[in-house]
């Protein structure tokens, strides 16, 4: 079980012949992800790690059955690649690229909503349902199957916290990187709604950071819907200065909006336990789940 990706996921890799695309295709295949085809315009007819390559998504879809795409195309060309995936009916599209302009992200996501496509990213490490499917660039060995669903705005911080959970014997149902950009395909609320319905998920970890108000809205949603599963949050950037972009395009305090303090207070008000340090997440969660 888990959300969005699993055993039934059959993926194509757009940008499969590039260094990143080819490297991660190998790692995803080794993990057991079903990669049925690759796409790189101009490289049709090649093979990468045994995966046939096509010039267009359309041709890949004519020759294979696929329901997801992971895109390794660099930012400048990523918008076209995503629109091609959406137009060809792929249901899940993971966008790894960082530095896609916000205007393009807004267009892509509007188009995806119209077609019923789920977008993960941009600027995401991807999504993993342990032992079933990895559609992303995360180090697989950190994750173990289990009951904790993770939604995060940050890559390595997710690895840090997931490794802590795994070490404490707390496996994961699905870990999903929302993406570090201001505008991304999924927000905390949408992912929590999926975790609510997912039987494998018994608890949820939210990893937020400064910028925007998605955490505040998630907190409001948790108390409004009386969210049925325990939630633990971590928010990075308690000491970040205002007006400075902290690595991620989306991680910026504008005026007084988007501070870690505001997010932490909102979570606490909604009864969500907020870990002060990454390693405390596992401890708090074990207590909530009555695991010693």
């Amino acid at each position, binding site marked *: 079980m888990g959300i969005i990706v699993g055993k039934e996921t059959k993926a194509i890799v757009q940008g499969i012949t590039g260094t990143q695309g080819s490297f991660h295709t190998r790692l995803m295949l080794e993990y057991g992800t079903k990669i049925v085809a690759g796409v790189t315009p101009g490289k049709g007819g090649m093979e990468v790690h045994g995966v046939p390559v096509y010039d267009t998504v359309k041709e890949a879809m004519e020759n294979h059955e696929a329901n997801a795409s992971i895109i390794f195309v660099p930012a400048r060309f990523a918008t076209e690649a995503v629109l091609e995936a959406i137009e060809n009916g792929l249901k899940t599209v993971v966008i790894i690229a960082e530095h896609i302009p916000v205007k393009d992200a807004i267009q892509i996501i509007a188009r995806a909503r119209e077609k019923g496509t789920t977008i993960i990213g941009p600027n995401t490490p991807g999504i993993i349902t342990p032992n079933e499917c990895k559609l992303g660039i995360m180090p697989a060995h950190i994750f173990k199957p289990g009951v904790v669903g993770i939604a995060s705005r940050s890559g390595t*911080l997710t690895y*840090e916290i997931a490794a802590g959970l795994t070490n404490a014997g707390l496996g994961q149902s699905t870990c999903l990187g929302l993406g570090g950009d201001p505008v991304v395909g999924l927000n905390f609320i949408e992912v929590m709604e999926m975790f609510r319905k997912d039987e494998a998920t018994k608890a949820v970890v939210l990893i937020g950071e400064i910028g925007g108000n998605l955490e505040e809205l998630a907190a409001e949603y948790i108390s409004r819907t009386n969210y049925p599963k325990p939630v633990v949050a971590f928010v990075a950037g308690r000491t970040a200065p205002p007006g400075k972009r902290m690595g991620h395009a989306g991680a910026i305090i504008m005026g007084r909006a988007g501070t870690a303090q505001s997010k932490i207070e909102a979570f606490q008000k909604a009864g969500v336990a907020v870990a002060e340090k990454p390693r405390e997440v596992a401890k708090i969660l074990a207590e909530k789940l009555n695991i010693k």
Partner: protein
Amino acid sequence: MKLFEYEAKNILSKYGVPVPRGELATSPEQASEIASKLNVSCVIKAQVLVAGRGKAGGILFAENPQEAKEKAEKLLNSEIKGIKVRSVWIEEKLSIKKELYFGVTVDRFQRTYVAIASSAGGMDIEEIAAKAPEKLIKFPINPLEGFRTYHATYMAKKLGYKGKQMLQLASTFSKLYRAAMDYDAELMEMNPLVETVDGRFVAADARLIIDDNALFRHPDYKARLAEEGEFAPEEIEAREKGLAYVKLDGNIGIIGNGAGLVMATLDAINSYGGKPANFLDVGGGASADRIAAALDIVLSNPNVKVVFMNILGGITRCDEVARGILEAKNRIGFTKPMIIRLVGTNEEEGRKILTEAGIYVMNSMEEAAKKAVEVLHQT
């Protein structure tokens, strides 16, 4: 990237939005010439990229060219919130009947642009939201449709205008929206948008922040970014090397991989009573070159007494990172104590490489942060 007021106004003017007549001056003499050309009461405005410029004394008034010269001289020799004033914008003073607000920005939650208007202009938008939320009109823009003329009319009407004035105001809104889209605005606003005593609408102040990720579509501004503006020279140098660096005011230099992890590292240092000297994200694939470049930048800050490196090797292999650190050490030499936290793929080998070279490596990010603060107190 933040644009100066005069740049934003020039863009608005190009799109047909009325702005006060004015010119840019970099010397008091120039200011006096511009004022005599304008031949009316003037406003002298410091061109600095900080919010709250007016309250900080960055906006002065002059009745004649001599006064304009004196006021310009005063501003050009001053700092506004720590930023040196390099130029002033001199424009005609408007006869104000009412101050409005209109802007377009990104709504992260809706994943759309949103148009915002208010009859309580002059204050910053957050202040309006806090003090007079009932005076805030928000219109989410459907990305597949855009901000149409009738949407603009609807907003102008809601502000209480009728007939020809309503249409004029709506047209101003549409023009700002077009400029905002063409320039990849993260935020573009007219605040205040002045209704003059004779019933016209003029953008008395303007702000434009271009999405950094879209700067490749705006090469003129990209080139200007390096010259002057909101970033320290080290921050621009780091950006060119693909590193994300933000200078802070403490004394513990920080290097890590991944924006969230580095932010959490700063927080941990603070919680143990230390003060980070910077934020630095080396990004993925921390090769020797990148580590060396990162160390170079961090150590260029004379306040740095201790360096804390927090690397979580995922796809990046720890042995590779360890070799990178050694290579960087040989290349640039470390004179400052260094705390390294290194875990992940091939961590045993990575730790062995560093330990044999006499560099102490730790496992836990929290313990390592604590250690870094302790070492600082010993130096």
